[in-house]
Every structure is written in structure tokens, then in C-alpha cells.
């Protein structure tokens, strides 16, 4: 997903910074604390990221959880592409990694992680993909940015930052692992043709 954010990782001059690199680190730390609190020492809880940046965030969150609580949570990823409801609206897209931890997902608490929550359609697809891999005890959702415009009854359990946006704006989430820099920016102009609505 979100290939459009890769080509101009450092943002165009018109971009407005929503979170600085330090803000991103702080936000991830805050979500990690909330996860520790809500999962209450459940060592079998698992963080599953939605590629690409959700998977990066899941790894960062796991590291932060480990640092703050000493509990090492397992991490995985689930590519939701094959379950999307908008496949036929654009040319076939490349698939991303799916890595389910040893031992599967049955009866475990899964924290699904993505970068931006918008329509909720990606999360819906990811929930379907998860269901094919097993039956979790419960699924929670963590996102770095919630920008509104929901099209499905989906709500995040952990939100880094709520950002009211217009539909013709883009949220650019940049992470060092994929974009060489951390930050969240707001860009004027509609999401490029064909990009999925998060």
C-alpha cells in the first residue's frame, strides 16, 4: 500500500508537519504503555502489522513494550490485499509479506497495527485474513493516525493522533525503516488515483 508516499519521502514544501520525528517516538511509546496496560501482562498477546508501515510499527511497538515491561511479545504481519473489496478498481497490485507467528493465532489476543485509519476497509480485509489463519480470543486495533471518514463500523483501541482531515488531503506517514526519516505530514490534494482508501 501507499507507494505514493515513498517517492517523496522528505515531503514537498506544501506539506504541513503533524508529528515530528520526536513526536513519532513519543507517540509509539504512549501506545506501548497503553497496550501494556490493556493486555495486562498477557505474554501470549501478539502484534500483527498490516504491511508495509503497519508491520514496521508493530515491530517498534513490540520493542517498546519489551523495553517498558520486560515482556517480549511476538510480532507478525498479515497482508490484506487478497481480501480487499476494491481489487477490481485498479490494476493488480503486488502482494506483501504475511508472517503468522509459530503456534498460530488461536485463542490469543491479537493487536492489529496499521499506520493510518480512514475508511476502515483495509482493517476489514485484515480481519478477514486473520480469521482464515485462526480464531483469536480477541482482536484490538492500534493506529498511528486516525483521520476520520469511516465507511465501516470500525474503531481503533489505540490511537496515536486524531487528525481531522478533508477528503482531498493526504496523510503521509514516514518511518525510518521504509522512508529514511520519521514523521507524519499533511498534504493538500487528493490521494493519487488508485491508491487504496485506508
Amino acid at each position: 500500500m501507499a507507494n505514493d508516499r515513498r517517492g517523496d519521502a522528505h515531503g514537498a514544501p506544501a506539506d504541513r508537519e503533524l508529528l515530528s520525528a520526536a513526536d513519532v517516538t513519543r507517540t509509539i511509546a504512549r501506545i506501548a504503555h497503553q497496550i501494556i496496560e490493556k493486555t495486562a501482562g498477557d505474554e501470549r498477546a501478539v502484534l500483527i502489522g498490516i504491511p508495509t508501515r503497519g508491520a514496521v510499527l508493530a515491530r517498534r511497538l513490540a520493542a517498546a513494550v519489551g523495553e517498558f515491561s520486560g515482556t517480549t511479545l511476538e510480532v507478525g504481519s498479515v497482508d490484506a490485499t487478497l481480501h480487499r473489496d476494491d481489487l477490481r478498481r485498479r490494476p493488480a497490485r503486488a502482494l506483501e509479506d504475511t508472517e503468522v507467528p509459530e503456534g498460530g493465532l488461536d485463542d490469543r489476543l491479537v493487536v492489529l497495527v496499521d499506520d493510518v485509519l480512514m475508511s476502515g476497509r483495509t482493517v476489514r480485509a485484515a480481519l478477514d485474513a486473520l480469521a482464515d489463519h485462526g480464531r483469536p480470543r480477541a482482536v484490538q486495533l492500534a493506529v498511528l493516525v486516525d483521520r476520520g471518514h469511516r465507511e465501516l463500523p470500525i474503531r481503533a483501541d489505540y490511537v496515536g493522533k486524531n487528525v481531522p482531515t478533508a477528503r482531498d488531503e493526504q496523510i503521509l506517514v514516514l518511518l525510518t525503516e521504509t522512508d529514511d526519516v520519521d514523521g507524519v505530514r499533511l498534504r493538500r490534494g487528493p490521494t493519487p488515483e488508485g491508491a487504496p482508501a485506508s
Partner: protein
Amino acid sequence: MKHLLSVTDLDAATATGLLDTADRLKQALLGREVRKLPTLRGRTVVTMFYENSTRTRVSFEIAGKWMSADTVNVSASGSSVSKGESLRDTSLTLSAMGADCVVVRHPASGSAHRMAAWADRAAVGGGGESTGTHTSIVNAGDGTHEHPTQALLDAATLRDRLGAIAGRRVAIVGDVLHSRVARSNVFLLATLGAEVVVVAPPTLLPVGIAQWPCRVSPSLDAELPALDAVMMLRVQAERMHGSFFPSSREYAVSYGLSQARAALLPDHAVVLHPGPMVRGMEIVPAVADGPASAVLAQVSNGVHVRMAVLYHLLAGAPE
């Protein structure tokens, strides 16, 4: 990608993309309770086989079903085909019925190309408007021309076992003249950067092979020690009656993969065979079932590669 007719339709990036998709699909299905993806729900895939091939037909059928496509099998016997209906009429009929994809195996070289031409013509009405039918054609083997998904699954297997294809040396041994598998493999492996060596009796080498992206070698024994992989082609019994070689015994002695020959291969080398194997002729059982053999991996990779092909042809918006 509208059709998959020949490996020459694929540049290195597209071919690698298909192999990557196949890997991801394999990963997505690994350890699943439900081996079914909703991706091609509501799409219809017809397999139309004018030659028997349980292996390829079933592989496509499973690939379709695992992605929730509706798969329909048409075999040449027991259909209007046996009543003398032309390939064109059968093909247009399937398009008109709404087949999103027709996977075809046919004894005539170029049949898939012809079906694609008919399908493309049917997609455009008299006034140049779209008729709403978009049938993708997948070549599952046309005469002695090509078998592109076989070459893709062979490439997937080699990439798995050797870590990469570029720079690896692969020998293709046997009846290259009549082999669609050989044609697809020579050109696809060359596209992916492999060094391809062809070993065959001169009577079973195509005219003009000097212009193919491969080297021809007269001696299998001389090549074996430096190979990363060797692909043995099936030798059909009828070739013996066409004076292509004197006897199966002489063929096996010169070109068969015996245990002694297999011992000349480096330890990491992979043995491939597209199947069905003629054991004792081009390959002995101990080698076919030995540790170097990737024959069964080829079969399981076949399903994932064919899923990847169907995914790229059918999942996205029509071009």
C-alpha cells in the same frame, strides 16, 4: 497483462513479480485452517484441454479454487468439440458465456495466440465499443511451442533451491525439438539471467538454435560438474520411430541421467523433470527420487505459480 501466451510476453521484472506473488501466496496459505482466499470470488476460470494432462489441469483447477474462482473443466471428449466444433466457435462460446479466463492446452502450436486474437476481437463490438466480455487466455501448452506456466514453476523451484536464478547454470537435456517445456524454459531462464546449456542428439535440436539465448553442448558428462541444475525432458516413445535416434538403450546410455552421471553433479545441484517421467529412459528412479530431485517441489510450486498468474490476470481492473 491481458493474456499469458508465451514467456516472451514477460520481461525480467514481470516474471520476477509473478514469482514474488507466488511466494507471497504460498506464505499466505501456510498453516491456514481455511485454504481459500476470497480474491477471485465470482470470476470464472475454464480449463479447456484438448490433450490429456491430469497434472497441469488439476494444478490450474486447484489454483482457481484456492482463490475462490469458479472453475469449470472442458475436455475435448464429451463436449461439442468431439462433434467437430471449431476451436474458434468453442472459444467464442466460452467468452459469450462469461468466462473470465480460459486455460487452454491444445496440440496445435499457436492455438492460444489464436484464441487470444478471437477473444480480443469479441471484446470490441461493431462500432468499436466494449462488449463487456474480457476473456484472458492462458496457454497451458500449445503443440511444440510453449508451456509458460511450467517454465515459471521451474524458475520458482530453482529460485527456492538455489537462492537466485541470475548467474546460475542450467542444462536442459533431451528432446528440445518437440518440447514446449524446453522452449519456454530456455527463453524464460535466459530472461532471468541464467546461463542455459542445451544437450541433445543433433536430430532433436531445433534448426536455428544457435540464435537462441543458450549454448549447445554435445556432451552431458562434460557439463555436469559445473551445473547448478539439470532439467531432464521427457522422451516420447514415438520419436524412436521417426529415426531421431537408434534405440532407447542408446539414448539412455548417451543422454539419460544415471546414478553415475548424477554423481558428477555438484552437491548443491538440483534435478528437475517436468513430468511425466519415463523412468529408466531419461532418468533412473534412484535419481528421480533422490535428494537432489526437486520433482515434487515443482508440482507444489506449480499451484502457487498458477495462482499468481490468475491473480495478475483476473484480480485487478481490466486493462
